[in-house]
Structure formats: C-alpha cells, structure tokens
C-alpha cells in the first residue's frame, strides 16, 4: 500500500479546491444569475430602476436586514432559529428612543452602547432558556417574540416617539454620507465582513459549524455544544440591539410595531442565501446575496406598482424555491458521485 503515492499535495489541492469551490458555490452563482435576470427584466419595465439613486435606496433598505441576517445566520448554522430578533429590535429601539427624548444631548456612542447592552440582556435570556431550560429554539424564541413585543406596549404605554423628538446626531449615524453613500451601508458591510472573518478564521466560528453539523461528534471532540449555542443567541441579542439603534436612526421613530414581522425577512435572507436549516452549512457571501435579492424584489415590485401585499407573497415564494432547488441540487450531487 505504500508504493502508491497519495493523490494529493498542498499545491495540487489548492488548484482543485478552486474548481470545487465554483461547484459548491453554485448557490452564489445561481443567485447572481437570478439577480441579473431580474435587473434586466425590471429595467425594461421601469427604467428608473437602474439609477444611482434607486440602487442606493435598495442598499439602504437592506442594510439593517443584512446586519440582523448575520446574527440569524450564526443561529441557523447551529441548527437553531431566533424568531425574537424583531421584538428585540422593537423593544430596544423603544427604550433607547425614550432615553434620547429625555436627554437630547445623549452622545451617539452611548446610544449604541446602550443598545448593545440591552440587546445582550434580551439575548442572554433567550440563551438561558434554550441551553439551561433545554427548550427547543423555535419554541423559546417564539415565546420571547411575544414577551418582548408585549414589553414594548408595557414600557411605552402605547405611545410612540416621532422624528421631532429625536436629536439630529442620532439621525446622522445612518444618514451621514461618506463618498456619496450613506453611513448605514458602510456599517452593514463592516458587520458582514466582521462576521465573515469570525466564522471563517476563529476557533469559535469553526466550532459553530461543527456543532451545527453534528453536535454529537463535536462533543466527542471536546467542544461544548451548549456553550456554543449559548454564545450564538447572546450574539443574536447584541446584534439586534445594535440594529435597534440603527433602526431609530434610519426611520426616525420608535413605535409599538417597529420591526414587526422582520424576523421572517432575516430567516428568508439566510435560507435563500444557502444556509441550511439542518445546520452546519452556509456562507456569509451567500447571505449577502440573499438579502440583496430580497431588497431588489421589494424595490422592483414598488417601482412597477404592485401592491406591497404581493411583496410578502414573493418573499414566501422565494424561500420555497430556494429550499426546493437545494434539495434538487444535493440530489444531483449524490447521483453524480
């Protein structure tokens, strides 16, 4: 058995890796093709689609989605789901907005820190219920989805906070421009890059994939699956808290129905972007494209004057198509193997 040289070497492997890469990234390629077709089709119907202003709008509209989808992706990678992100955003934005109304000179940095801290507390509660209470994530976060939403009503007594009650500085956080583009877009990109590097180049990131793919084998290898799950729900809370501050800045208000239903968009972006709901599979570039596709569809439907209710239907259709195409694709890989 030693006379046959092993069929791989460091150099060779890198070359083959690239070929394989294209194949496994089929998902990304598929979304890009889909996006291009969509862009052409929409531009033919509504030429205003392909203008700098409109495209900036699209990016601006998906920025917060991208940020929260990063959190959702990490959670789904561990075979879980966090349905409470929307309520966390709602509750934290309401609380931060109350503070801002009372103290117009409250520094933006403190607002952000306050948002992160409040989000951490809410995420911590999810994490505890899921890991110590051993409650399935979908049930636990369905519970806190309602609890946190209920707390918004309790906290705000049904009132909401309007643009004129908020200081200019907080609005500038997302709307100030650098090189012609709003800050929010840069912030979203920055978060995406950080999460990308985190998942790809840190031990914790690697362990998230391992636990999601096979929690038993991960435990046999000395990883503590409960600890990893705890961390992703905590991170999800922190990122949602950050998103809440951006939400105030972007929409210049805090209402009882802030971000209502937003959790579904984050799950859709992740799943359309190729994150497997059975855990362990998915990439950040894929999720970015998934979010972009969602944003373009929403924008396009508005431009060609289709009712917003259809946007929900389109989103639903998209997630089903994505999952079916996944199944077909994986079946084909098995067959050609």
């Amino acid at each position, binding site marked *: *058995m*030693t006379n046959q040289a*092993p*069929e*791989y070497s*460091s150099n*060779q*492997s890198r070359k*083959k*890796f690239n070929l*394989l890469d294209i194949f496994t990234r089929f998902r990304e390629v598929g979304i890009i093709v889909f996006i291009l077709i969509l862009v052409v089709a929409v531009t033919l119907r509504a030429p205003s689609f392909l203008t700098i202003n409109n495209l900036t709008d699209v990016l601006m509209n998906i920025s917060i989605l991208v940020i929260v989808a990063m959190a959702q992706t990490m959670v789904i990678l561990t075979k879980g789901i966090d349905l409470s992100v929307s309520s966390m955003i709602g509750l934290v934005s309401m609380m931060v907005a109350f503070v801002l109304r009372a103290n117009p000179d409250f520094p933006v940095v403190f607002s952000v820190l306050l948002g992160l801290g409040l989000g951490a507390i809410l995420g911590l509660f999810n994490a505890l219920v899921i890991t110590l209470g051993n409650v399935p994530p979908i049930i636990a976060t369905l519970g806190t989805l309602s609890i946190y939403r209920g707390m918004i009503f309790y906290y705000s007594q049904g009132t909401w906070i309007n643009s004129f009650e908020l200081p200019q500085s907080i609005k500038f956080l997302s709307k100030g421009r650098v090189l012609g583009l709003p800050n929010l877009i840069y912030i979203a990109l920055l978060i995406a890059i950080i999460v990308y590097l985190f998942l790809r*180049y*840190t*031990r*914790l990131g*690697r*362990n998230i*994939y*391992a636990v999601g*793919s*096979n929690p*038993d*084998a*991960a*435990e*046999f*290898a*000395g*990883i*503590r699956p409960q600890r990893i799950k705890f961390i992703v729900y905590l991170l999800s809370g922190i990122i949602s808290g950050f998103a809440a501050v951006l939400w105030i800045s972007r929409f210049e208000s805090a209402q009882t129905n802030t971000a209502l239903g937003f959790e579904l968009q984050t799950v859709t972006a992740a799943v359309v972007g190729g994150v497997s709901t059975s855990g*362990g*599979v998915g990439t950040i570039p894929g999720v970015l494209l998934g979010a972009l596709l969602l944003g373009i569809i929403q924008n396009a439907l508005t431009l060609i004057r289709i009712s917003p209710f259809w946007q929900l239907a389109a989103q639903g259709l998209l997630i089903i198509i994505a999952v079916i195409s996944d199944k077909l694709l994986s079946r084909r890989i098995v067959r050609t*193997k």
Partner: protein
Amino acid sequence: MSNSILVLKEISKSFSGVEVLHQVDFDLKGGEIHALLGENGAGKSTLVKIITGFHQPSHGEIFLDDEAISFNDTRESRDTGIAAIYQELSLFPDLDVAENIFIGRQPLRKNGMVDWRKLYSESKHLLDSLGVEIDLRQKARNLSIAEQQMVEIARAFSINARILIMDEPTSSLTLNEVADLFRLVRNIRKNGTAIIFISHRLEELFEIADRVTVLRDGNYVGTKPINEVSRDDLIRMMVGRSISKQYPSVEATKAEVRLSVENLSRQGAFREISFEVRSGEILGLAGLVGAGRTDVANAIFGIKPAQEGTIKIEGEPVEISSPRQAMALGLAYVPEDRLQHGLISEMSITKNITLPRLEDFSNMSWLLTQKELNVAYDVALQMDVRALHIHQLAKELSGGNQQKVVLGKWLSTNPRVLILDEPTRGIDVGTKAAVYSLMAKLAEEGMAILLISSELPEILGMSDRIIVMREGYITGEFTREEATQEKVIMAATEDVRTRIQK
C-alpha cells in the same frame, strides 16, 4: 434445483464502490433448516437483506420456485411468503399477544369493525397447533424475550410464511428457552416451511440445522450437510486463514499502568467494572452487542460519567465529566459510530483532523490556517488517507478512509491512552490490516490501548489480555495464551441473572 424453493445465483452487492458480497450462491429446500454461518462482516446480514428485498443485488439472480424474481422492497418479498425475525424484536409493546399476531390484518365483521372473538379464537388455535403456551391477553411488553420471539414466529407462521429467516434467535435466551424455541422451529418445519438460521453458536447448528452455508469476507465458501462436517471444519471455513497471519505480532514491553478503573457503575448500564491497561498493552474488551462495553468507554471519556467508582490515570484518581477533561488527561476515543460520533461529515478532511486541538492552531482564538493545513496534510499522509485533496468533505470518503481520518485526528492529539470502539467495523480488508499494524506500532511505542470489538478473531488476534462483559458485568478475564473462541463466547453468554439478584 428441483426441490429448492429459493435459489440465489452469483449474488454480488457493492455499497459505494466497496463490494460486500462477491458471487454468493445459496439454495434453500422446502422444510429444511439451513444455517448461515460467518464472522461479523462476512456478509450474512447483507445476504439476508437481499432475500428480504431490503437491498437489491448489484449482480446475480434470485429464483423462487424456479422462477426468476426480483424484490424491489421488503413488501414484495413478504407477499411471496418470506418472513424475517431480527434480533431487535418488532412487537408492539402495548398490544396484547393476539393483537400482535393479527396486526394489520385483523378479522373484520360485516360492519367493518374488528371481530375480536374471531381474533382470539384463531390466535388460540394457532398457538395450540404450534405447542406454544402464552396468555393471549398478555401485553407484549410483559413477555420475556423468548416469548416475544415465539409470538413473532407464530405471526410469521400465520401468514403462511414459506421461508422464515431467523437472525441470531438464541443470542439472548437461556438453555431451557433455546430448547423450547427449537421444538417450535421443528414444529413449523414439518409443514414445509424452510428456515434460514443465523447463529454464532456452533453447537446449536449441529443440534438443529440440516445444512450449513459458510460466508467469509463476502465470499461464498461452501454449503455442506451438517452431518458431514466437524466443528473444526466449520471454523476453518469461517476463518479461512490462520489468525497469526492476519494480525501482526506485537513486541511491546508492558510498563506502568496508564489507565485503571475500580468498581465503576452506572445504573442500567454496567456494574462494578474494574480493570487496568498498561503502557504498551492492548486490552481487549469482548462481549455481545449491548453488553455495556460502549457505556464503559463513554463513562471513561466523560460523555456519560459513571455514578460510582474511580478512574485513575497513571495512578492518580481523576474526575472526568466531559470529553474535554478526558482529552486534557491524555485520553482519546475512537467511537463505534463513525458518522454519528466520529466525524463532521459536512466538513473537510483538514477541519475534521484539527477539530479536537484547534487551540494548537490559533493565536488568541484566531486560526492559523496555513499551520492547520500543514499539520492536517502530514496527518493525512501518515495515515495514508486516500482522497482527491485534503479539502474534500468527509462524507465523500469511503468508510475505510473516514476511519483513517478519525484515527489520525485522535492520534494527532498525542494521547497516552487510546480507546478504540469497533475500529474496523464496516471497512475494507486492506484498511483493516492497516489499522492492525498501526495498533501494533502504537503499542510498541508505549501506547495503552483499550480495544472494544465484537469480532472475536480481532479480539483474540490483537489483545494481550481480554476481559469479557455480559449484561453490564465482567464475566471473564483471560490472558492471550488462555483465551480461546469458546471461552470468550462462554463468558459473553453466561447467564448473569443470578448475579443481578444478589
């Protein structure tokens, strides 16, 4: 062929490129009891699964009553009168005996309701004709294993099974129960039902079987009338090679005790387990499936810790409540179920190899991927992993190569004690040999190895000492010189009920 009801001709079967059956012939005559014999992994179960339609042969033909036939699924096979009784019994625990016998085909009255009176009277008639005495209204969960088997046989008989396959039916029965079972089997044979009987207990075959077919490593060795062969003939046909050839001789000096456990117990799994493994020693842990061997390994590795007893590493009592602690103490555990516990199948070879020791490839939690890649490459090369490249996903490898990845991953943690749980299960002969020589080399370098295996020749061929477990107890301990297949099997099947009462 004239009086054969079932004939298999040159059956071959491959799973993802690995051939597990190679041109196997088999024929079954009406009313005969035909034993199927072979070591673990010889291909008996695969052959049975082909007969029951669970697997489809890659090559070869099946004839039923001289007509070529192919089964697409188990239902088609059942409809032609083939019934199988597996080791894991399949009764519905909360239904009573009669309901179990008629499950799925209860007699109905005209209004479509179940005709309970008919169901019970027919069941009674059936059991009487078979000479079985079991209360018809007893719930299946209250029956002994032997009684449950009899109910299954009665059920198979009542649907006019012409061919009854019994997979190790006696493995968990007492001697009296075996006698009852054999009486029942002879009864149903009288009606022309043919029986395929799988057992590892050679004595039984001489008592019950008419003919015996032997398989070895997926090959057909031969079919003989039982009264023309001796026990030794059968063993030679099964093993087919002298044990010394297949297993490398280990020239290791036994040194200090690396791992010792004292009076380890966990409710419902194992009791009062004590043993020690020395540096350079291979300790075999034998026993039947379900004897509690894996539970003991899981306890030592901290996956399911024991409730009582002490574990000592190099003489020091230690507390192990997680695999992490076990690893820190220099333990490594290659688990029985490769896909469930050994590998992250969606991850690459590289990532699998480095998973237990990522801290060695990181600087403040930041991964040094080039270093990781280099080490994984070296390990894969050392273990002779055959793959396209080291980024290939673990799930795309053959069983043997997957096992090499798992072994490599654990050896690269530089353990002082290595626990191997069924290290050669489901891998090809070539890889098996490689695993054996690796074990020999490790022992010579001073590794303490605990080898759990259900393959007797493997245990006998590789171990310096052998301990045998049965239903959670240690029922035998032998040195390499003392140990024989018979002694180990005897200990592995010893009736421990008297102990439990104690």
